[in-house]
């Protein structure tokens, strides 16, 4: 059985035009969060985070504060601190703070470089975890934060596998996906996230990318920074100031 097109050339051209129109104006762009005010002119910030790795002293006050603020169960972390050691042969060793106190054990040995790298969810503008969620429980808010709808999440763990930064975990108490929210309940009230508040060395910074005068924007204009795994195309919104080349 053959399908006959009437005026097939005209139809073909129409289809092509519609198809190319979709390519130029993808439907996704209508719903994706963009860094711009809403239609009614209300100002919407775009939250982002910066970590100054040259200042971190590895005290892990951030980890304890996060646990207290967000009731994170033992054994899982919304934010954590890694210690990198590059020894004389160029070999890189990484360890993380352990125990309930979250402290680093002293280690001996000669190194070329050694430093701490605090890590957390990168709140990617094009997050992978949102794309793989089968029930739409992971999403980007208009102000640039990646959240989990814990009432809707089915705990399948697909997002945990998809995140290239290992920022997500299944909450052992609630059995749903959990992650850093930039302390969304705090930042929407004009307060700093708990980890930023308690960092004794200003190694963690938080601010509004839409505000050209915010401290974050000033620092990003002045200082060299790197992003984690930019080649993944996730557009992470966590800027690492003074980050060593060995960190991935």
């Amino acid at each position: 059985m053959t399908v006959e097109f009437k005026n097939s050339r005209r139809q073909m051209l129409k289809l092509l035009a519609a198809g190319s129109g979709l390519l130029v104006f993808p439907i996704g762009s209508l719903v994706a969060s963009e860094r711009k005010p809403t239609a009614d002119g209300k100002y919407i910030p775009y939250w982002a985070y910066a970590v100054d790795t040259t200042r971190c002293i590895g005290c892990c006050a951030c980890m304890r504060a996060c646990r207290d603020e967000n009731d994170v169960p033992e054994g899982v972390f919304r934010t954590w601190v890694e210690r990198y050691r590059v020894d004389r042969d160029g070999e890189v060793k990484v360890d993380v703070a352990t125990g309930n106190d979250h402290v680093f054990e002293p280690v001996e040995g000669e190194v070329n470089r050694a430093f701490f790298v605090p890590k957390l969810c990168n709140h990617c503008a094009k997050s992978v975890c949102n794309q793989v969620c089968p029930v739409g429980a992971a999403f980007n808010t208009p102000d640039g934060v990646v959240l989990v709808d814990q009432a809707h999440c089915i705990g399948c763990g697909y997002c945990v596998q998809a995140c290239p930064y290992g920022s997500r975990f299944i909450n052992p108490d609630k059995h749903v996906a959990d992650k850093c929210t930039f302390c969304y309940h705090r930042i929407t009230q004009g307060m700093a996230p708990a980890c930023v508040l308690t960092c004794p060395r200003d190694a963690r910074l938080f601010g509004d990318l839409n505000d050209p005068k915010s401290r974050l924007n000033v620092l990003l204009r002045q200082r060299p920074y790197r992003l984690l795994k930019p080649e993944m195309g996730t557009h992470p919104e966590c800027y690492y100031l003074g980050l060593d080349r060995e960190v991935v």
Partner: protein
Amino acid sequence: MTKVPEPGSYRHTIRLFLLLGAVLVIALVVRSLLVPDSFGVLGHFRLDAIEEARQSVLRHMEQDVCQDCHDDVVGLHAKDAHAKVSCETCHGPGAFHVAAEGEEGIHLPEGQRPCLVCHELILSRPGDFPQIIPEDHYRFVGVREFTTPCTACHDPHEPLFMDRDLRTARLHPLIHRCRDCHAGRFDETLARPEEHPPIFQCEYCHVQIAADFAQRPHRQVRCTTCHLFFRESDSSGRILRDADPRFCLLCHRDADFRSDEAPPSIEWPDHRDDMAETEGDLQKQCIDCHQDHIHPLKVKTAAVAGSGSEE
């Protein structure tokens, strides 16, 4: 016997469409029951979830809240080296404490551990940050018991008695210390000295003072112990002299936990009051009388090229 439909009858087609329609209606009903109300308003998610995330309970307050009741301590704290350490870094989240109207619910750190979390010398910690090896530190200042809490000498709210604001302190090129790069106790000889990157040491510029200081009783003390250095950028920082009597007393105050080999210790403020020269003069500083224990406070420069000066 099956009934053969008459030619031209469309009943089977109509039935099929009715069935499909019923399935569609059921699907729509089920979908409306399963899909939450605010789903899809801003995107492929439930809009109400944003509001729910906003409703989480606050545990950490901010410094302003602490200041409402503890104005004196917060004011003291803001002047000294711990100025950037928020109250809740050491005292834990303050919401319970505020809810209990200050009766309970706040953490009061005890012993050495809370201090050593930041100040213990461990590999990777930036070298411009003050760190100690506890045993060495206790031995140096002559504390007998290694379990003596840090707070026996140091007030965490006013650890260094800094006499001026850091932002007005003098700019100074970056000071490197061995432990910027070297972990442990630096007793190993450097394997390849020719590969060592150039660093500045105090005596390179401050020739006269360094030479003089090496003859004085305080020669075991590093320059940066009293001349506090705070790194600001990759190449510079702020340096300030700490001449507050209470700073000297951190090592020299008489206490029962000090051993006999301790640095010479005195009773305070009895010592000041007993002395004929200082009696009644509360402005007197230790170095007004004990200058010869450190180094001359006025050093003539220009005689030697490259020599530095100290006020």
